[in-house]
């Protein structure tokens, strides 16, 4: 089992090791991340109205997350594969625990309080679920038997259901997507993918009936934000005003009147893109999207060069999950998608999602830098 996991055709290529590789750091990915995190630090400073305390906290968290990323990068993909089923099992148990004794926060049970730390099990699942699904396919023949796909779908469905009842629709969709990406990269036939998408479109009206009133409201508001300009449509309208008023070159650093005058809600978290777009304009947005593209392309390259099935599925899924994050957030604040309450990855102020993302980059780095060691 371990044998087949570590064997790879890629190990034929041997290149001299640089100091970055010895530290299991991918220089390109690190460059992209550092640039994005610097942007984040500046934007959080501005969006918080120049609040040093907030910015400092954010800075410390970034440093912590970078450190964590580097630490995780030291763990070889084979060891990660070893702990994956256990991590997933623990995650699953904690999700059940949340339902039974979870803390209430903003009307939803999402946290487990261990006394010394409050932990959100869904964060663990963001990593554990795609890895678990990848683990399923790691030892399979190609093409994988239907039973593997079915098992993968069941795992995704169970996990997503446990999160959606917390209720946390946004995270639930995101986690489901990360699992589905693995299944997609594992070679789920196109016929089934297209068929499933068609079935999904048909089942939308049924799903509608199971949605919470506030979720329905969000969708309705998305369809026509101006229908409730002072209620749930307010955020979208103000966000569009922020973005649009930025123009081509923006209002300048610290120049976001929409955020500083409290028209934008959650300006340091969910709506930080609007602040950024208001201050740095279309040019700034182009630069930010370029940075994201750079990281995404690097992620896809790591997946392409990965040595085994587990690694490439995990790398592909993590990269595309980052993409979904970006898409949902920017789509939401620019009025293209309903408001679901997800932060802008790597830029928004906020702890757990940043840490989770950086761990996933650590895993990407591990995948990319451990190949050569296997050839020694």
């Amino acid at each position, binding site marked *: 089992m371990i044998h087949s996991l570590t064997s790879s055709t890629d190990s034929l290529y041997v290149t001299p090791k640089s100091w970055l590789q010895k530290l299991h750091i991918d220089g390109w990915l690190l460059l992209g991340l550092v640039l994005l995190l610097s942007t984040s630090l500046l934007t959080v400073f501005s969006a918080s109205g120049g609040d040093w305390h907030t910015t400092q906290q954010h800075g410390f968290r970034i440093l912590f997350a970078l450190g964590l990323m580097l630490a995780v990068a030291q763990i070889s993909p084979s060891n990660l594969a070893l702990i994956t089923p256990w991590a997933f099992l623990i995650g699953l148990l904690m999700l059940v625990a949340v339902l039974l004794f979870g803390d209430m926060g903003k009307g939803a049970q999402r946290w487990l309080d261990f006394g010394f730390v409050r932990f959100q099990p869904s964060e663990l699942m963001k990593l554990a679920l795609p890895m678990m699904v990848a683990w399923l396919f790691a030892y399979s023949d190609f093409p994988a038997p239907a039973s593997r796909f079915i098992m993968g779908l069941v795992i995704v469905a169970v996990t997503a259901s446990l999160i959606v009842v917390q209720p946390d629709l946004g995270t639930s969709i995101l986690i489901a997507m990360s699992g589905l990406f693995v299944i997609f990269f594992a070679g789920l036939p196109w016929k089934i993918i297209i068929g499933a998408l068609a079935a999904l479109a048909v089942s939308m009206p049924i799903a509608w009936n199971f949605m919470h009133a506030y979720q329905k409201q969000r969708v309705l508001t998305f369809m026509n934000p101006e229908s409730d300009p002072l209620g749930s449509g307010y955020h979208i309208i103000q966000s569009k005003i922020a973005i649009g*008023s930025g123009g081509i070159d923006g209002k300048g650093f610290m120049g976001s009147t929409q955020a500083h005058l409290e028209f934008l809600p959650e300006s340091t978290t969910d709506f930080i893109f609007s602040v950024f777009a208001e201050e740095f304009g279309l040019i700034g947005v182009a630069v930010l999207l370029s940075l994201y593209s750079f990281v995404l392309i690097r992620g896809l390259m790591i997946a392409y060069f990965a040595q085994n099935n587990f690694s490439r599925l995990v790398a592909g899924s993590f990269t595309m999950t980052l993409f979904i994050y970006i898409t949902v957030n920017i789509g939401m604040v620019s009025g293209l998608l309903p408001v679901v309450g997800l932060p802008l990855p790597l830029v928004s102020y906020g702890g757990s999602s940043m840490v989770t993302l950086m761990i996933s980059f650590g895993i990407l780095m591990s995948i990319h830098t451990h190949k050569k060691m296997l050839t020694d």
Partner: protein
Amino acid sequence: MNNLTFDETQSRIRQKAMFTNRLLFAGLIVFAVFCLFMARMAYLQWFNHEEYLGLSEGNRISVEPLAPERGKIYDRNGVILVDNQPVYSLSFMRESIYDIDYTINAIQELLPSIRPETLAQFKTRLKRTPRHRAIILPYTLDESEAARFAVNSYRFSGIALNARLKRVYTQNKSAVHLLGYVGRISQQDNLSIDRSRYRGTDIVGKTGIEHFYEDKLQGYPGLQRIETNAQGRTIRSLETIPPTSGENLTLTIDIRLQKYLENLFEGRRGAAVAIDPENGEILAFVSSPMYNPNLFVDGISHTNYNSLLHDRNKPLINRASRGQYPPGSTTKPFIGLGALEQGFTTMSESIFDPGYFEYQNRRYRNWRRDGHGWADLKRSIVESVDTYYYKLSLDMGIDSIHDILAPFGFGSQTGVDIPGEANGILPSQAWKMATYGKAWFRGETIISSIGQGFNLATPLQLAKAASILANRGRIINPHALKGQSHESPEQIPIKNREHWEYIIDAMTDAVHTPRGTAWSSGRHITGYKIAGKTGTAQVFSLNDGEYNEEELDKRLHDHSLFIGFGPVTRPKIAISVIVENAGGGSRVAAPLALQAMNHYIKELQ
């Protein structure tokens, strides 16, 4: 890797190819979505930039008008008559109120003098109000209540204490018909005012001085450009142009004399105007009954307004400048003077009064049934001999009488700085033709000669006429605002100065000699002399029937009139008094006027 079979290797190659395809597909999706985002951003930030910039500016900057303080009004001695006092109200922002029921209860506890109904109604309104809009509790807090709220304000998020200046008529009812009042700007007001001067203000002068000097009293609003946040809370002020306060006005009236006269009118209907004949300054301007202008400031209630409107005594009417009364015998000195000057009579000529005058088979009665016997012009004034004027007027004709009375201001507006002045009526042949299309009858001249018939005058006109007489023909224009030059030093041409002194002597005798019609009250005046003339204006004429007060409705009783000035040698005050349905002038109007003048000359000078 040598341990891989061929099939295994083939399978791995196919798998890698499939994976590469899917990666490329994913990359394409990423590319497509990012292109979509750039297109969306270009749409928002490039093509619709102007619109959104406008919206964001609208969010951010609001221009708030700063209302100017309205000018205050003082009397001639600097006593404040109209003031602005800070009053407080509470505005509620529904969005920031956590529990409406709890909040309303807490407010009730803190400010127990708010009526529970008011609060209950307000609560319903509050619950229906859009979340972002502030609404104001319809209750005015006094200073101590405001202080109590301020101390407890930490308990009430979403409730703000607002201060504004409220117009306060410090003398309450006193001088209301002169001062007027302010009220909410109505649709009608909007047509006559420059709306831009009333930004931040919702009151405007409605009547009286408040209306006439609106342009002076209303200042110019300032403005404040402020940055606000989404809750409409002020973040900082960007620019402030301070308002320009309205001009403070000092009036010519003496509030002490005003109140003294008003007290004398207590329980009566009528009017009095006192003027300083020297310069036309109005010293008192009384119309009775009065009402409290403070009722109108914040908008008068229907109940209050209806009770004022339907009051039988019509307190809302400004009798002093709008009330038109037959001047009665008060015209006698003027006609007598004109007759002397124009040679229709002499100072020595006498007529015999049997108690009536006959013309074309009609008897025109004298007020004294048994007649005065032989009477000259002086006696005709002292004792108010009607018959003298009946005869004289036939010699003169209505047009001569008109021409004599016109320069004294009868029949035309005085031009006083109080709105809504009536014209009065000074008839002439031309006037009757123009008004009724009919020729003048000589019989009408006879009743005109004693200020009856068509003749109507306002108390203000009578006071002006008395002032001109006191000035020996120098015309003054009555006015209520001090410090303005209203003078047009016109003079009624004098042929013989003795004629004027003769008439004034006669009026002095009317007050100071036992036969005089004003003797009963005039005898109490010592140290100086007052000239006066009583009048009785018939409201209802019973042609040949017997005049019986008891049988007549009180409303049909004669009006009691008096005009006068004093001291005769150097007049300080001229006055006209009309008391409605009070009977003969000597009975009510004369004592009232003389008492007021005596008080003014002796106590207030």
